[in-house]
């Protein structure tokens, strides 16, 4: 941290996190259709990559992305996700922080890679389908959504899907990042806003 963190940076964090979260939420709504739930880690980052790239272009200090990831974790926890979301969010935030730092917060290439690593937090949303959480989670779904839905979901999510999802996150984030870079170039660089 060369220069001290300013209030201005915190406001930037707040506003862009709000935008990012709103887009994520809008995309997540289609995740209730069983097959889309599985594809969510691929589709989500493609759309969220666009505001994320704009946010990355505003980042100048170490720590901003980490704060964003903490805030997303808290919001996700409040809206009823399991506690591992904290691990995934903050982990992804820290990795992205390092990636951006490697590019000195200026290189577009590291921004695109950062968009890819940052979307790893979405795994925290789907972790309930896998490993030790699996049985409990599906048992709790039976009442609310019915056996048919649960059977469908269970069929879609064998354990190997989790590892496929990691790859999907990375690829989705990469596409989103490239798309975001394109949008930035087309609309914002000309206006001098990015």
């Amino acid at each position, binding site marked *: 941290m060369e220069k001290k*963190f*300013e*209030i*201005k940076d*915190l*406001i*930037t*964090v*707040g*506003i*862009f*996190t*709000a*935008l990012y*979260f*709103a*887009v994520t939420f809008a995309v997540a*709504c289609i995740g*209730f*259709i069983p097959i889309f739930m599985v594809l969510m880690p691929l589709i989500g980052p493609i*759309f969220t990559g*666009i*505001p994320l790239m*704009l946010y990355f272009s*505003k980042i100048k200090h170490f*720590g901003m992305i980490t*704060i*964003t990831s*903490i*805030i997303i974790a*808290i919001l996700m926890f*409040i*809206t*009823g996700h399991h506690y591992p979301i904290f691990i995934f969010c903050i982990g992804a935030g820290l990795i992205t922080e390092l990636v951006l730092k490697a590019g000195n917060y200026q290189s577009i290439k590291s921004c695109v890679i950062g968009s890819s690593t940052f979307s790893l937090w979405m795994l925290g949303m789907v972790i309930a389908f896998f490993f030790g959480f699996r049985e409990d989670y599906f048992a*709790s779904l039976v*009442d*609310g*959504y*019915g056996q*048919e*839905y649960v059977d*469908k979901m269970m069929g879609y999510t064998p354990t190997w899907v989790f590892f496929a999802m990691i790859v999907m996150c990375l690829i989705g984030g990469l596409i989103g990042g490239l798309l975001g870079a394109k*949008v930035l170039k087309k*609309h*914002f660089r000309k*206006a001098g*806003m*990015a």
Partner: protein
Amino acid sequence: MELGLSSTSDKGILKLDPRTKLCLLIAISIIMVGGKTVGVEYVLRVICAAIPFVLLLTVRHVKSALIYIIILGISVFCEGSVIPNISGAPNLILMIICGIISRFVPGYMMGWYTVRSTSVSEFMTAMDKMHIPYFITIPFSVMFRYFPTLGEEYRSIHDAMKMREIGQSVKNPFTYIEYVLVPIMMSTVRIADELSAASLTKGLSAGGRRTHICQINIRLYDWLLMFGALAMIVLFFVF
């Protein structure tokens, strides 16, 4: 026009502490999202669904309270009596829609109540008393302030597109997203700059302890409600 965290919160009968609201919000979302629909948890769900309704009435948001209870009523009715009688694809679709509504809408309404009935100053003061560091509270208060603005911006863009008759004619989803997202992002950048300027004027970056004139006290009913929320969570995990 009032947006987001309201500037005054004197209207209304029951003035809750922001910490109490937060407690209730967490309890409601944990129970509503994860809960089963039988036994003790069913009772808990009914209580949780009723809390936002009552609280919205106490701040005189009668219209939104009624809309909330009607939507929830319809979805619960569908879950109870319509879904068992049909099968196949309509069953699944209806089930998912009703499932989302009955699980997420109460938490969402509680969040809306919290945002509408708490002023920025109250929120910051309460967070300060909970010893939450400022690098969490400032982005949070900015966010809550910004969410309603985001909705408004979206509606304006939608209207503008309609006026120029480009809303329906855009078939490519990516083009549509570009048309909506880019103006929103533009205004986001502008709002961020304006807010930073405002915060500079208000001396937020001066350092030093923040003072406040709003009264934040945990009163008797706050304790009761917090205890209730805690009891519900304990009951929820025990059963």
